[in-house]
């Protein structure tokens, strides 16, 4: 939910993007048709797009507004819908993922969490989803020696990892 201050700020911002009567409260957005809502979203700056969706989410008509963002499933709105979701996807999804030396286990299972057994255990599924190369590289950094688990040996690697944690 948006705070009251952010809500007011966004409504003022959005009012400045349309001709005629602006928006005094969230529910005023309901008077926009699907196409108008999508066209309004196009005018919203990337940096405010997340807040724009949060604002729609705060509305009591969230379900209806989502339908409008989907273009009310009208073919003529498809381009606008695709443009909105493509842009929002870029804004919202993490861009942290890649990079040559990115190892997700090093980022999300850092050594300083090794004392928190409940946390580590909750990450077992995540550990098992990694490639064996990622796991070996992670184990090499976390514990002394080189690790050579083979393809498909994620479970064995997890058991080794857990054993090491319990030794500490």
């Amino acid at each position: 939910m948006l705070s009251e201050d952010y809500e007011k700020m966004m409504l003022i911002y959005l009012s400045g993007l349309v001709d005629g009567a602006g928006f005094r409260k969230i529910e005023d957005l309901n008077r926009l048709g699907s196409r108008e809502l999508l066209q309004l979203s196009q005018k919203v700056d990337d940096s405010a797009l997340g807040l724009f969706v949060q604002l729609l989410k705060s509305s009591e008509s969230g379900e209806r507004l989502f339908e409008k963002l989907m273009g009310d499933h009208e073919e003529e709105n498809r381009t606008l819908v695709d443009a909105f979701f493509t842009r929002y996807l870029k804004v919202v999804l993490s861009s942290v993922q890649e990079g040559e030396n990115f190892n997700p286990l090093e980022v999300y299972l850092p050594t300083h969490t090794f004392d928190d057994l409940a946390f580590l255990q909750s990450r077992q599924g995540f550990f098992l989803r990694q490639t064996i190369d990622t796991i070996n590289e992670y184990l090499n950094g976390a514990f002394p020696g080189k690790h050579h688990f083979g393809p498909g040996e994620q479970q064995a690697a997890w058991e080794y990892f857990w054993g090491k944690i319990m030794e500490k």
Partner: protein
Amino acid sequence: MNGNMGVEGAMSDEPGKPSPKTAPAEEGETGTETLAKPALNWKVVLFNDEEHTYDYVVEMLTSACKLSRENAFRCAVEVDMTGRTIVFYGTRSDCEGVCSKILAYGPDHRLPQSMASMNAETQSL
């Protein structure tokens, strides 16, 4: 509906909903004997919470429901905005399989406070 219904290209405009063209193969017809088609009148509903990120939902749905990244993202937006979204349609057994995958996917490693999978339910249409 088989487990591949969510594969890219097999979707209608609505995320998670198969297009009418994706009717299942008629496996039951052999000679004069005709078996009933599997009933595709079940769905998997995903529920919103505050312990999972958009990244998680997209990753999980592309894996568990074989949705394209774009459709998975639309489902993520819907579940965030409305509290729930339908992510799969199919037979009861297929839906239960998908639902189990969602429930077993595990917590969101991006959020330290996330300790469990998202909640989902198999429902009849």
